[in-house]
């Protein structure tokens, strides 16, 4: 029975023994919230002794070899699943190698969506929820994600951790925008939505469908009685390829948000692999805010400053928001220019995205950079230089979530 028939999404758990870290109940809780369940692909026990040679990656841990055997069972269809969740211990080097190669192997040999994650004993259901929600959405709502044109009069609200954005769209055009800092989730959403409606010159009653996304999506979605309440990974990747006019074929979307980053590998507007940054604010909009404050400039001026500077002139030996700022302050004290400091801040953010996230998704051109931080000119410049490719920043790239939500919500407009 398919996922759409039964409603339950079957996710293969390919792990090195996550149950021993005490996180299994958290995994199960997150899965239950999105009506999914974990299954353990069946394998022949003897294959654990031979899979390493067969796979070409010979590792010492039996459970890591079990992961490879389970991945093979998924690819060969011995176990029928809708998605795969690959997970190993955070801090285990051997686990990290296997996790990455198993992910690539499944990606190469099947169309099954995969997410990978390294767990600690502190991993919570809340941390996993957005990822599993995205995974199950890709399985359940493929038809919705293939929508390429916005129809009717729809709106989208993106309740982010730092800013709340809203758009009103009509017949495939943005006719109203709203943007406010997030203070109280509901009040900020009300304000942003009102701004967008006013600019569009329409009333709430006229809006045919509304979609919400972002951290506050459930709260505001219920408040506004939204037709679509959707996590930001699928919404933003759809919004990105829509705004960049690259809806067909492969693309990589990097979304630098206020609190976390997302790197998403997209094919025909549908996310395949994705990673989501954790709790570290060292590679996000928050870091830029603090740097701007320290340099005494508005965040909108930081980009122009950065493109004039040379990041090589400032030594940064940490990506941590605390130590990173300490490095920059020390550099300023030694006479570094604000331009160089701004450039180093941009470089530091993209370097961390490269090291922590792009290693988990395969970068395929075009690379579309979205999120508020994409408006800081130094960021696409630094990313392009690091990856040696052209970075595409579409117009309205900061409104990506709201646009994606309005686009997908139009699937609910009765024609």
């Amino acid at each position: 029975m398919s996922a759409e028939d039964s409603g339950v999404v079957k996710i293969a758990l390919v792990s090195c023994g996550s149950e021993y870290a005490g996180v299994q109940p958290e995994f199960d809780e997150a899965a239950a919230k999105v009506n999914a369940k974990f299954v353990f692909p069946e394998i022949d026990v003897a294959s654990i002794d031979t899979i390493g040679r067969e796979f070409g990656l010979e590792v010492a841990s039996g459970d890591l070899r079990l992961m490879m055997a389970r991945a093979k069972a998924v690819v060969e269809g011995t176990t029928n699943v809708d998605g795969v969740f690959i997970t190993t211990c955070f801090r285990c080097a051997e686990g990290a190698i296997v996790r990455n190669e198993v992910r690539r192997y499944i990606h190469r040999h099947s169309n099954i969506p995969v997410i990978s994650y390294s767990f600690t004993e502190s991993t919570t259901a809340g941390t996993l929820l957005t990822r599993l929600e995205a995974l199950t959405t890709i399985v359940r709502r493929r038809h919705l994600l293939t929508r390429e044109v916005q129809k009717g009069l729809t709106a989208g609200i993106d309740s982010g951790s730092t800013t709340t954005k809203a758009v009103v769209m009509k017949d495939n055009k943005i006719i109203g925008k709203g943007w406010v800092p997030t203070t109280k989730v509901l009040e900020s959403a009300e304000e942003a939505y009102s701004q967008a409606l006013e600019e569009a010159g329409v009333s709430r009653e006229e809006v045919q469908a509304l979609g919400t996304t972002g951290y506050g999506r459930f709260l505001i979605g219920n408040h506004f009685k939204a037709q679509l309440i959707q996590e930001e990974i699928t919404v933003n990747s759809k919004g990105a390829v829509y705004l960049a006019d690259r809806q067909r074929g492969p693309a990589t979307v990097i979304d630098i948000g206020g609190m976390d980053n997302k790197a998403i590998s997209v094919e025909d507007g549908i996310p395949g692999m994705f990673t989501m940054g954790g709790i570290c604010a060292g590679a996000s909009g928050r870091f830029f805010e603090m740097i701007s404050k320290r340099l005494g400039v508005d965040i909108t001026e930081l980009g122009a400053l950065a493109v004039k500077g040379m990041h090589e002139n400032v030594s940064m030996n940490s990506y941590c928001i605390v130590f990173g700022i300490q490095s920059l302050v020390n550099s300023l004290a030694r006479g570094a220019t604000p331009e160089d400091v701004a450039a180093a801040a941009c470089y530091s953010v993209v370097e961390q995205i490269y090291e922590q996230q792009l290693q988990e998704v395969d970068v395929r051109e075009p690379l579309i950079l979205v999120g508020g931080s994409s408006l800081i000119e130094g960021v696409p410049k630094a990313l392009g230089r690091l990856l040696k490719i052209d970075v595409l920043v579409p117009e309205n790239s900061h409104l990506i979530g709201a646009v994606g939500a309005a686009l997908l919500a139009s699937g609910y407009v009765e024609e």
Partner: protein
Amino acid sequence: MAKVFIYPINSLILADLVERFGHKPLTMMSQIREKVTNISLDSPPINITSEDPKLGLKYAAIEVPAGVRGRMALIGPLIEETEAAIIVENPPTNFGCVGCNRTNELMKYLIRSKNVPILEVKYPESDEEARDFVNKIAEFLSSLPKEKSEEEEKAEEEKPEEKEDKK
């Protein structure tokens, strides 16, 4: 009777051999059984909670992966009880699955540091090696003290309570 730690920690063949010679095998199965059958609010598969990796801190530092510390929360107490050990190197999976190699390295190190009688043998590759393998294990198990005096048994029984008192 000696408490004999075995590696692979879940090998049924080794556990059986130890029992046949009148000793008590220290196995992962017994630890997991306790976890599964203990009445708890937490749910299966093996009722390990995020508290277990914290208990594992006794054996491995915070930098060590959570799965290793979670496993050590089960295996560590067995190592503490250990009076003798049999370590089989390079066993195939069906002789006893050796899950996480980082844990295996640590537990073997802790056993070797304990200053108890240890037999280290290679997994046999031929019939002749297999006979030699079983003979070595039999000889080792026969060399361990069979019965303890009543006083020793009594002292052993009191040990857990003493530990409780100390807490």
